[in-house]
Structures are given as structure tokens and as C-alpha cells.
């Protein structure tokens, strides 16, 4: 956290949030372009787009006071600018470098947004690397020390602005991080400072690491670092001479800035002090990194900044961005809730009016019909606000595939189909991890190396297809590869080894399901990509937590298709209302197989527990009144209605008094004001304004086992 951020009031924090979101978008855009670049290099438009993204991040970071974020972006921007001006030519290595720079910026972003750990060395490294590329391809005086990357930039400014001449008064920023044993070597730092003071005007700030505990500190070990500002006519070499016997080259960083750029710098300067003494920076040497993060922003405006109106300059957005607005999720949820209320009110009205004479109240009935139509449309439109295209998830895969392919020595092409398929935002967040896992699995296990592929008569380049589509009320996402397919024998052998129940005469379908067992992996060796066997079971669990299903189809040698099917949204559920005694319950429609009135001869008992015989299967009966300790009208399975439910192959028959109706219900949380109720997945409000509990079929199974 920087000082300027601490000074911010709540309102500014709100803007910070906007910046974080925008910054993340720019990074994603940049990455997307980089990954899709053709081998011969980017065209003008692409280069401009990357440049715009980098520039916008830098600009935003500067405005919002995240000075450290401007460092990498600045160097990146300089490099891109030179590329735009054809001073430096594109090479494929640059793509990786740019991607890496993007990662570092993301890391800094996460640091500001979530307080995540920021590796300062990474910032240094990438700045230096980028600077090297600039130096290699430009006429600017090369600088030997890698940590002096920023010096080069500053000098470049000095050159371009031709303000500072060699003999004029210069401002130097010095960061001195001595050896821990400097005191033991008998070096007197006072003398050093006195010598520096002879050169010009000196300001010194001392920094202590956050971990300093004054109770245990060893006064003979130097843990401090110093930052100095020096106005002098002396050269950098003169300054370094003073430190000659005190510090190694890398213990002293010297940054030159022309005096002219000084005015802009006061804010940065005060922040520098805050940075040095700030306790939360987790690193042993406080001023270990080059002063880059605080100086970078002060480099001043470059020639291209003045060119903002030139064609292709930054500040332009794609038309897509202009046609959308950013709204908080809570606002949308509030709207959805309110519309839910409206739907309930409309239902109540309809119920009340149903008893009125249709002839006498013709107008009322007609209006109510219209109201019903309108509310339904309204509800649909409102629900669609929460829907976002799945391309948000898909877009992260090209990069991952690219990098993994390189690592694994495989050739992989990633195809995405149905990018514009829309899914609830909550689901999008939850589906990312399972999909990532599936794609990794494809890369690591399914797809063969090029030689093997050629040997088996396939194209050397493997294909992974991500396909999303809407089928009825559900979203279906396929992860398809044209790899080796699942190996039936291997899976069965592995299952036997792991003690997972399996037999040779299981159908393929059943065998594929085995890979969802916890701890299952057929990979010969565990890599850092996959193979630890903590995967498919997690995938299954995650998908199920979204009321989704996973299916696998596979053919040896041809490939595998994993299909995830999800409900369109989590806020609304299709359910069947049933009566048990005086209460009504909602059973999710997707878990219901059928309902039946059992014939007396199909009812049996096993160990005193009731089962029903349906098409050759004995299915246990769960009496809801028993499970919930209620008074029901019907207590004998033979007189009531049985609803067959099926969750992940586990079946049961629920005994209820009567079936009532099929509804689309808005799911409400009971936990907001009460605690979790076992056996329920929430509650909803029925047409008559009463609350009905929604049954959670999974937890019903659990409850039954406990009883």
C-alpha cells in the first residue's frame, strides 16, 4: 500500500476498484493479442492495441497512485513505441517477454487489490530484460548494470529533452544497501555521508526491514538501507568513487534525473519515504530493489504522449466496450430479488382472481393475463443481466495451451466453439477451475507427442476443442480432444490397484466413471501439470455443486469427449411441489426420474426398511414425514405417491402425500437469518405467499443413512 493510497477516502477506493477492473481487462486484452500473434509478427493494428493497453494501465496506475505499477508498464511501453516506429523489429522471443511482463503487472495488480504477495525481484528482472531489448535495438547509450535499467531511461529523457547538460546541477537518487557485516569491517558511515555532502545538497532517509525486532537485534549486523537524494554537479562516477571501498557495485544504485523533471517529482518523493519505512513489504532488505517503482512514473512525458490525437493513439476503445456499462453484482441481485417478489405477487393475484366469475370480470382477467406475460418477460430479461459469455473463461486457455504445449513438446491447436454462449456469472467463476483441469488433462495425458501421432496415422498437431452450447434450459460444455482415448484396461487395472470396486464386465460408460474416484490417476509419472490424481474427483464435485453433470465418451485412438452440463442459472430452479401433511416441499426437477403409485405387490421390506420394486430394481423408500418428524396424511407407502429420484446413479423413492404442481421457483437462502436446515437447499416463496423448503436430494440420502 502506498502512502497516497492511505490518504484516499472511501470514494477514491471506489474508483480504485474501477481501475483494477479496467487494468485486468487491459491485461487480458494484451494477452489475447499476444497469444494470437502470427509468426511473422504483429501488424500495425495489433501493435497499437498492445501499446494502448500498456499505456492505459500505466496512465491509470499513475492517476490512482499505484506508482510501482508504472515501472514495468513504462519500459514495456517504451519498447512497444520503438517497435511502432520500426526502430526495433519483432522477434518471437518478445512475445514471451511481453507475456511475462503482463504477469508481473497482474501480480502487482493483485498486490494492490487483494494484498497478495508481490515479488519485487520479478519486477526488477522483467524491467531489466525489457530494457535490454530496447538497448540492443536502439542507439541509446547501453548501461552495464542490469539494475540500472531505469538510469538508461532517465538518460534517454535527458537526451530527448536536451535540458540537462553535463555540467548543470543534477539530481541523483541513491539507494545504498550495505553488507550486513559492514559495521564489523569497521566502516564509519558518518564519514561517507560527510563526503557526499561535500558534493552538494544531501538528504538521507534510512529504512528498516519490517521484521526488525528491537529486543533481539544484533547491533553489529547492519540491517538498514539508505536512500539519498543528492543535488550536485558531480558525475555518477564521482559518487561511486566515494562508495568505492564501502559497497560493491550492486549494493549501490544510482539514478540520475534532470532537474527539470523535478517539479513533477515531489509526490513520488514523499511516497518513496513511505515505501522505505513501510512495515508490510516482506523482504529482507527494504531498499533492495532499484528505486524504479517510485521513480518510474516521474520519467516525464515522452514525445508520443503528446500525440494522443494521432491515429491509433491510445484512448480508443473498441465499440464493444462502449456499448456496455459496469454495474455491481449486488445491484443486479437486488433487481432479480425484486422481480422475484413481483412474480410472487402476480401469482397471488392470479390465484385470488381465479375464483371470480370470468364473464363478470372479463376485463380483470384479461389484464391479469397480460400482467403474467409481462412479468415473465421482465423476469427473463432481468435474469439475462447476470449472464456473461463463456468466452471469458475460454479466452484464458490459448495461453495456457501454448505454454503447456511448449513444455510438453507437443503440438496442440485449441479450437473454441460457441464463445458467445451465455452463462450465469456465478457459474462462470466456478466452472473455470474444472475446465482448466480438463484441458490440462487433455494436454498431459490424452494428446500424444507428434512422433506417436504420425506413427498412428494422425496429424502431428493435436486438437483440443472447447465447445459451449445451450440445450434447453441447460448449458453444455464439451472438452474434446483427438488424442489416444481412455485406456479401458489401464483404468481397470488402476482401479483394482487402488481398491476401487470394478469388474471386467462393466460397460465402457461405467469404466469411464471410475476416473472420477478420489485419488485416481493412470499417468505413469506425476508431473507438475497433472497426474497426482487430485483432479477428476474435484472436477466432478465442483460441477455437482453447481447442480451440473459430467459425462465421458471415449474411443481408443480417436479421442475423448468430456461433457459438462450445467443449469442456466443458480437463482431459479425448476421444481415439483409436493405435499407432506400441512407442508409443501419443492423437489428439484432435474433429480426426478418419475413418480408412481406403487402396486401393493411391488412393496417389500429389507431388514424392516421399505423398498419398492420398479422395473427389476429394488429402490429404497425415504418417507419424508419420518425424516422430518412431521405429521403426514399418508404413512404407508402403498397409499401415497412415490417420487423416484436419481442423483449420480444413487436412487431412492420419496414418499409424499400428493403431487401439487410444477413451478419455476426463485431460490432464497434460509441461512441469511437462520441456520442451515439439513435436507434442504434453500427456500422459496409460493404463490400464496407462504414459504416452501426446497429439498436437497443429496443431503436426504445422507440423512437416511444416518437414521
Amino acid at each position, binding site marked *: 500500500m502506498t502512502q497516497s493510497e492511505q490518504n484516499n477516502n472511501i470514494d477514491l477506493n471506489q474508483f480504485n476498484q474501477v481501475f483494477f477492473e479496467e487494468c485486468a481487462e487491459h491485461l487480458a486484452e494484451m494477452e489475447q493479442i499476444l497469444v494470437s500473434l502470427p509468426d511473422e509478427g504483429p501488424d500495425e493494428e495489433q501493435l497499437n492495441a498492445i501499446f494502448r493497453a500498456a499505456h492505459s494501465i500505466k496512465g491509470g496506475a499513475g492517476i490512482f497512485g499505484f506508482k510501482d505499477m508504472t515501472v514495468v508498464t513504462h519500459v514495456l511501453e517504451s519498447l512497444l513505441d520503438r517497435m511502432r516506429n520500426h526502430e526495433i523489429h519483432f522477434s518471437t522471443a518478445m512475445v514471451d517477454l511481453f507475456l511475462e511482463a503482463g504477469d508481473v503487472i497482474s501480480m502487482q495488480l493483485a498486490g494492490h487489490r487483494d494484498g497478495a504477495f508481490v515479488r519485487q525481484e520479478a519486477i526488477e528482472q522483467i524491467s531489466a530484460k525489457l530494457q535490454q531489448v530496447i538497448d540492443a535495438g536502439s542507439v541509446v547509450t547501453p548501461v552495464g548494470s542490469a539494475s540500472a535499467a531505469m538510469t538508461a531511461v532517465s538518460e534517454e529523457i535527458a537526451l530527448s529533452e536536451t535540458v540537462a547538460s553535463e555540467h548543470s546541477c543534477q539530481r541523483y537518487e541513491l539507494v545504498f544497501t550495505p553488507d550486513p557485516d559492514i559495521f564489523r569491517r569497521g566502516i564509519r558511515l558518518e564519514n561517507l555521508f560527510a563526503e557526499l555532502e561535500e558534493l552538494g545538497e544531501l538528504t538521507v532517509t534510512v529504512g528498516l526491514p519490517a521484521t526488525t525486532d528491537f529486543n533481539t537485534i544484533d547491533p553489529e549486523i547492519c540491517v538498514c538501507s539508505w536512500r539519498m537524494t543528492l543535488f550536485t554537479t558531480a558525475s555518477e562516477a564521482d559518487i561511486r568513487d566515494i562508495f568505492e571501498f564501502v559497497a560493491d557495485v550492486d549494493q549501490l544504485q544510482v539514478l540520475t534525473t534532470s532537474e527539470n523533471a523535478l517539479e513533477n517529482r515531489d509526490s513520488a518523493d514523499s511516497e518513496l519515504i513511505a515505501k522505505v519505512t513501510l512495515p508490510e513489504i516482506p523482504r529482507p532488505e527494504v531498499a533492495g530493489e532499484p528505486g524504479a517503482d517510485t521513480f518510474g512514473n516521474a520519467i516525464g512525458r515522452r514525445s508520443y504522449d503528446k500525440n494522443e490525437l494521432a491515429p491509433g493513439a491510445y484512448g480508443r476503445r473498441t465499440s464493444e466496450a462502449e456499448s456496455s456499462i459496469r454495474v455491481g453484482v449486488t445491484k443486479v441481485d437486488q433487481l432479480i*430479488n*425484486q422481480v*422475484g*417478489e413481483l412474480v*410472487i405477487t402476480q401469482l397471488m393475484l392470479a390465484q385470488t382472481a381465479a375464483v371470480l366469475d370470468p364473464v363478470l370480470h372479463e376485463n380483470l382477467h384479461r389484464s391479469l393475463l397480460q400482467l403474467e406475460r409481462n412479468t415473465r418477460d421482465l423476469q427473463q430479461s432481468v435474469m439475462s443481466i447476470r449472464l456473461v459469455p463463456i468466452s471469458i473463461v475460454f479466452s484464458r486457455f490459448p495461453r495456457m495451451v501454448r505454454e503447456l504445449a511448449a513444455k510438453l513438446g507437443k503440438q496442440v491447436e485449441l479450437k473454441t466453439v460457441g464463445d458467445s454462449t451465455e452463462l450465469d456469472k456465478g457459474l462462470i467463476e466456478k466452472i473455470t477451475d474444472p475446465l482448466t483441469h480438463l484441458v490440462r488433462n487433455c494436454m498431459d495425458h490424452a494428446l500424444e507427442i507428434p512422433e506417436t501421432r504420425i506413427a498412428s496415422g494422425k496429424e502431428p498437431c493435436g486438437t483440443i476443442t472447447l465447445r459451449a452450447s445451450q440445450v434447453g434450459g441447460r448449458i453444455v460444455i464439451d472438452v474434446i480432444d483427438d488424442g489416444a482415448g481412455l485406456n479401458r484396461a489401464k483404468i481397470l487395472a488402476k482401479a483394482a490397484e487402488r481398491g476401487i470396486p470394478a469388474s471386467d464386465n462393466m460397460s465402457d460408460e461405467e469404466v469411464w466413471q471410475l476416473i472420477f474416484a478420489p485419488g485416481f490417476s493412470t499417468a505413469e509419472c506425476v508431473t507438475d501439470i497433472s497426474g497426482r490424481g487430485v483432479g477428476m474427483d474435484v472436477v466432478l464435485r465442483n460441477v455437482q455443486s453447481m447442480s451440473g453433470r459430467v459425462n465421458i465418451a471415449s474411443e481408443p485412438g480417436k479421442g475423448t469427449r468430456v461433457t459438462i452440463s450445467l443449469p442456466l442459472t443458480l437463482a431459479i430452479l425448476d421444481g415439483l411441489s409436493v405435499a407432506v401433511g*400441512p*407442508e409443501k416441499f419443492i423437489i428439484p426437477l432435474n433429480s426426478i426420474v418419475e413418480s408412481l403409485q406403487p402396486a401393493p405387490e411391488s412393496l417389500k421390506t429389507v431388514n424392516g426398511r421399505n423398498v419398492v420394486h420398479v422395473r427389476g430394481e429394488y429402490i429404497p423408500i425415504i418417507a419424508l414425514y419420518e*425424516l*422430518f*418428524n*412431521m405429521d403426514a396424511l399418508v404413512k404407508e407407502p402403498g397409499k401415497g405417491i412415490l417420487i423416484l429420484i436419481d442423483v449420480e446413479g444413487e436412487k431412492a423413492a420419496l414418499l409424499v402425500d400428493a403431487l401439487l404442481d410444477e413451478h419455476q421457483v426463485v431460490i*432464497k*437462502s*434460509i*441461512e*441469511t*437469518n*437462520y*441456520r*442451515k*436446515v*439439513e*435436507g*434442504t437447499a434453500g*427456500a422459496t*416463496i409460493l404463490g400464496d*405467499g*407462504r*414459504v*416452501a*423448503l426446497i429439498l436437497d436430494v443429496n443431503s436426504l440420502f445422507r440423512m437416511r443413512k444416518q437414521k
Partner: protein
Amino acid sequence: MQTGQERTDKNGTGVASEYLTFTLGSEEYGIDILKVQEIRGYDTVTHIANAPEFIKGVINLRGVIVPIVDMRIKFKVGVPTYNEFTVVIIMNVLGRVIGMVVDGVSDVVALSGDQIKPAPEMGAALDTDYITGLGTLNEQMLILVDIEKLMSSEEMQVMEQAN
């Protein structure tokens, strides 16, 4: 968390704080008025499976699912009857909305610190921990309840104890 008791303590004896008083059987109780959101009649509730007897169930309060507790059953005072005079006090406790069934709401009274006496140890159904004190008003005794402490207690089973 600022109960009426604390407010008066801070300001010496000068400023009084207000209590909503209600009856449970023959006893008169009072809770901090600032915790009360609204008062409404008793409606049909939806029973909650395997909940303790004093938790009557949940109701729909303008789209919000609100649990209803019957203090008469919990405190074992009076006879839990439900008729058109039965009243539910909807309270805002620790960010949650909870309804409490009582026999009737009587008044809003202001009590200053010196009108509140500490409650004696009784070992009764209502633990003394949840009583901030006994108030006296026109010869009548008021049992002042720390509703936040009571509702968040384990024995009420209204809130998840992890919180």
C-alpha cells in the same frame, strides 16, 4: 453492540433509554427498542424439519425468509396459543432478522440507569446471563432482556455457532 444498560452507564444516570415492553404469560419483559424493526400479527409459518419446539418455523416477510421463535415455549411461561391477538416482534439482531412470538406488546418506556436493578441469580429457565437487569415502572417489574446475547446463544439454535 450497545444495550440500553450500557448507554445509561456511559452517560451517568441522566439520559434514559427506551424499551419495548411485552408480555409473556403473566410476566412483563422489555427489550431495547432500537433492536425492533416492526410488529406484526402471527401468520401461518412453514415448519422447519427437526428444529426445536420453540422455533415455530419461517415466514415470508416481503421476500425475506425470517425464522420465528416462540419465547413462551422457550421461557416456559404462559400457554402458547395463536389467535388474532398473538403478536410477532420482528427484530434486527446482529444483522439478522428474527421474529419473536409474544402474548402482547404493551408499551414503550424510558428507563434511566437508577431505575434498573441487577437481576438476582435464579437458575431459572431464562439464564440470568441474558437479563440485563430488572426495571421498575409504576410498581410493575420489567425483565430487561439482552436480546443479542440471547439470540446468538447456543441454546436458541437460531444462528450457526461458528459465527
